[in-house]
Structure formats: C-alpha cells, structure tokens
C-alpha cells in the first residue's frame, strides 16, 4: 500500500502532465510568448489543476489525519524572504530559457528523449549546488550567532 499508492498517484500526475502539454517546451514557451506565437493552453492546465486541488484539499483537510500517516505535513513558513523571491525569480529565468519545469520534465523522462535527460541532469546539479551554498550560508550564520552570545 505504502509504495503502490504513491506509484499510482505519480502515474495520474504523469498522465495529466503528458496530455496537458506541460511536458512539451514548445507549448510551455508559447504560453509565455503573448507578443508572438501565443498558445493559451497552459492557462487551462493551471485552472484545471487549481480548481480540483482547491476543492480536494478542503475536503481532505477536514479529516483528522491522512489515511496512511498520523499527521498532515503542510509547509509551515509564512514569512516572505529574499530566498523565496530571489529563488523564484531565478526559477522563472531558467524556465524561460529551457521551457521545462521540474514537474513537466520528470514525466517526460519516460519518453526516453535525450533533451529531457540532459535537462534533468543539469537540474540535479543545480539543486545540489544550491543545497551546498545554502548549508554554507547557514553554517556561517550559526557561527556568527554563537560568537555574539
């Protein structure tokens, strides 16, 4: 159950991504190209996903707990900070260059296309580079704080 259910959820997500057009950079980039070959399809993807999730979460979160776990683990941060905004701005820059976002590229791996493989490899290098930078910054901050106290 703990492995088969997530597999099926991944499959549903992947089929959604595949038929929606999110796995195809040509379509993604055209959504943003309002001044050129505009294709508004991705607006419909966002709308469909948001409406279903909005209603779905409201129904599910009425339960005291999820089915296989004891608590719902929702992100708890509320503060807007430089990391959130700077990181998101950089993500948009990369998305605009490559046309793949992580959720679009992962199911597309199943097509076996070399372009997707290259994007995901570079994505992983980026993720682990950022994690190394973040842990260095946090270490330095922690050390500075210890010196002050």
């Amino acid at each position, binding site marked *: 159950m703990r492995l088969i259910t997530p597999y099926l*959820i991944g499959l549903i997500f992947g089929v959604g991504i*595949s038929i929606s057009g999110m796995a195809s950079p040509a379509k993604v980039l055209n959504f943003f190209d309002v001044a050129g070959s505009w294709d508004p*399809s991705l607006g419909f993807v966002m709308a469909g996903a948001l409406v*279903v999730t909005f209603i779905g979460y409201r129904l599910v*979160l009425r339960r005291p707990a999820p089915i296989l776990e004891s608590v719902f683990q929702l992100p708890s941060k509320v503060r807007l900070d430089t990391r959130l905004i700077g990181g998101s701005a*950089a993500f948009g820059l990369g998305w605009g260059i490559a046309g793949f976002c992580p*959720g679009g590229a992962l199911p597309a791996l*199943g097509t076996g296309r070399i372009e997707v493989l290259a994007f995901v490899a570079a994505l992983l290098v980026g993720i682990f580079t950022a994690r190394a930078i973040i842990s260095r910054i946090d270490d330095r901050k922690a050390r500075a704080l210890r010196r002050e106290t």
Partner: protein
Amino acid sequence: METAFTPWQSLAGGALIGLAATLLMLVLGRVMGATGILTAAFTAAAPERGWRLSILAGMISAPLMLWGLTGQLPEVQVPVSMPMLLIGGFIVGLGVTFGSGCTSGHGVCGMARLSRRSIVATATFMATTGLTVFVIRHVLGT
C-alpha cells in the same frame, strides 16, 4: 514554432494533476511538489525515500502507459538548443531550491492552500519566465 491550442486536453490534464495532488494529501498528508519529491528522493532517510521513488517511477511510467494505450508517446517538442537546456536546467535547479518550490509545489498546491509565500513565488516566477521568453524571442530575436 506554432503549437495548437488545446483547451479541453489541457483542462483535463490539469484536473488530473489536481487529482494526484488531492490523493497524495489524502493518503500520505504531503504536498505534491516535483522539486521536493525529486530532492528528497536523493537526500531523505531510507523510510522517507521509498514513497518518493514510487511517485517518480509512476511519473516516468506515464508516457509509456499512454504509448501502450494509444500507440504514440506524448508530444515533447524542444525548440531549445542543448547548451541552453543545460544552462536553463542548472538555473532552474538553483531557483527552485532557494525558492523552496516550483510550478507544482507553489503554483498548484501552495496556491490552492492560499499560502501567501506560494502566491508571491508563483507571481514572481510567472513574471520572470514571461520576461525571459520576451527577451530571448523579441529582443535578442532567436
């Protein structure tokens, strides 16, 4: 490169993405963010890794299942050169890690929870993606 406008297919695909996000919350109580799932599939402790690897396996099987059902793989058109895919991929990796999420985590799950951080993150990356595409296509003219 022109692409066909596919409102119904895209709406249905979006609804399936929302269904997957809802089911993951119902079953495991977790947010369906591609960045978080991918990262923790490598970094989390063993018991927390299994379900994430299962989700990834499910995602990757989806095109193959569609191929089995319809006889063709989903369309992946890439009008981007290999160096640009690598540069873009690296920047996306940096961005989603500093920004704690991407289109699925912030854009779908966080927005559906009306999280202020996710709304700001989504507005920010949608704006910079649009700006980047505009500059590449209409200012640099490639």
